[in-house]
């Protein structure tokens, strides 16, 4: 009953361009947002924070970033792990060099630093495409991780080679470090993701988003329409890296607390991010969230069911979990190659007419 467009007429272009064109959907969305901001913080426990919600939010941010580059602009990247490391190390260096600097600003600046590095490694995209570009970005992954391992300056010459996040406060409440209460880290992550998902939505529906998608769908026609490949591709690399860098900074500062570069930002992270956007849906903001949920939250859920619910041993559960996730990835890719977001879109199209499809 809620999902009806009958009687919901659009009389202005602004109304026609809304993200949620159907009133029922809009109401549900804002109720959900209100629930996330106003209800969840009162009930959140350390387990929910550390294992589910914060990693989900941080990965959503990273998936959003990669989706801008790969989903919207069509440039495949396997350098996500490396760019996350840039964000994390920028955050570490900034916050240790300027302890007074507000943590929100530090995270945003880390994103900006990563944007610069991303543009540099995006330069090959002007010459090469597809798999070849993927290999070129793979070089970024290995080079950046090597670089952060090799030069002590990046980890302040600590004996272990690790970086660890000192406690930083926001409005007098610790949001990083071991003493940060779960609700605070959750709210900071949620606010970041909410604001920047909105920004991503705005960027992708305007001029910039159209120039990215045009470059993705037909690059020669895009050039003939007057879209410069230099601007379109490098802006996609910059903005994508900005998101991934902020995600990396949050991953390190809020979620992990301490990190060792090869361990935390290896090639597996690049693949995780790529799987997220492929399963979630390329070129879809919602898809980034669905993909992150599938890769981050679903395994935790499975484990709880198998170990907690069925009483299986943990190692058996771990293997079954890997098998299940793998099988589901294949299943989803066969059933709907355009990802979970497309399944959701098709469901909505059916719902519009349900239960009277004629």
């Amino acid at each position, binding site marked *: 009953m809620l999902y009806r467009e009958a009687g919901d007429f659009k009389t202005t*272009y*602004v109304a026609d*361009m809304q993200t949620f064109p159907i009133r029922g959907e809009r109401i549900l969305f804002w109720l959900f947002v209100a629930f996330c901001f106003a209800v969840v913080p009162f009930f959140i426990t350390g387990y929910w924070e550390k294992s589910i919600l914060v990693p989900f939010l941080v990965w959503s941010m990273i998936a959003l970033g990669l989706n801008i580059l790969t989903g919207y602009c069509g440039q495949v990247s396997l350098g996500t792990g490396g760019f996350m490391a840039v964000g994390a190390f920028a955050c570490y260096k900034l916050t240790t060099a300027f302890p007074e600097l507000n943590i929100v600003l530090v995270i945003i600046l880390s994103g900006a630093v990563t944007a610069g590095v991303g543009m540099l490694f995006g330069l090959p995209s002007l010459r090469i495409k597809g798999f070849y570009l993927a290999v070129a970005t793979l070089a970024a992954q290995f080079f950046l991780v090597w670089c952060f391992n090799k030069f002590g300056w990046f980890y302040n010459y600590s004996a272990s080679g690790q970086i660890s996040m000192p406690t930083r406060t926001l409005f007098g409440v610790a949001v990083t470090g071991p003493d940060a209460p779960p609700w605070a880290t959750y709210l900071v992550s949620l606010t970041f993701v909410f604001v920047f998902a909105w*920004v991503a939505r*705005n*960027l992708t*529906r*305007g*001029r*910039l988003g*159209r*120039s990215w*998608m*045009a470059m*993705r*769908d*037909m690059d*020669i*026609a*895009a*050039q*003939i*329409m*007057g*879209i*410069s490949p230099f601007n379109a591709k490098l*802006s996609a690399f910059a903005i994508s890296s900005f998101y991934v860098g902020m995600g990396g900074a949050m991953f390190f500062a809020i979620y992990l607390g301490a990190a060792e570069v090869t361990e935390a930002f290896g090639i597996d992270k690049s693949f995780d991010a790529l799987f997220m956007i492929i399963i979630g849906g390329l*070129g879809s903001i919602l898809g980034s969230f669905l993909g992150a949920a599938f890769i981050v939250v679903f395994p935790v859920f499975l484990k709880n069911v198998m170990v907690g619910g069925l009483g299986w041993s943990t190692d058996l559960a771990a293997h079954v979990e890997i098998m299940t996730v793998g099988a589901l990835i294949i299943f989803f890719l066969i059933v709907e190659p355009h990802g979970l977001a497309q399944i959701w879109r098709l469901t909505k199209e059916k719902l519009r007419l349900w239960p009277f499809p004629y």
Partner: protein
Amino acid sequence: MNRAVDPRELKVHRDDGVAKGDVLLEVKDVSLRFGGVKAITKISFDVRKGEIRAIIGPNGAGKTSMLNVINGFYTPQEGTITFRGVERRAMRTTDAARQGIARTFQNIALFKGMTTLDNIMTGRITLQKSNLFAQAVWRGPALREELEHRHRVEEIIDFLEIQHIRKVPVGRLPYGLQKRVELGRALAAEPALLLLDEPMAGMNLEEKEDMSRFILDVNSQFGTTIALIEHDMGVVMDISDRVVVLDYGRKIGDGSPEEVSKNQDVIDAYLGVPHE
């Protein structure tokens, strides 16, 4: 014919400082080679403002190469191109677009994952100015600009009678409609010169008639100068003001449709010459 918008109220055309009937584009002694293959040899012709200029010729005559030279996609080895009084040889395609040259393609080159509306909006990209931060918040200048351009695009959508497919991804549309959307995308750029590469290829009679009507309307109502490549001689003879005929990369005829159809070289090129 009922139309939501009177085309005369539309200004899908930019003021280019060239008076009607004067030379808008002049191609002079242009030669283009790919290695040893001579695609175009010493071709000269001009396009006058406000006319429909057809480029015809058998397959492989160099017609599409000629269009690619005009909009900067290929750089000719010899010769010059003068557009709106500015002479050039090498240029980037994006610059050609900014100077007001728009085109459609023989094999449709739409952005398949985007909706009809977004495709046509893409045509206005060179006219949009708002910066990154304005776009990020989607309020104030960026939104105002978007609405302004949306308004113009809606007028084009009305003109081409494609309102019903506004929000459909173009990959799902039938061929004839895709051709029409592509014309819309080129029109959205408010071109001074519109290049159409086989706008009627693969269409049935009704679709051809529709497309001819759109081309004539664009020309007469907006005053847009059009250069088109077409194989359907009936259409070419009916709608074009002047025709240039190419064969094996050389110009063999130039003039009004009547003159060209009487030209012995043209008849030979199309019908073949008996070899003894």
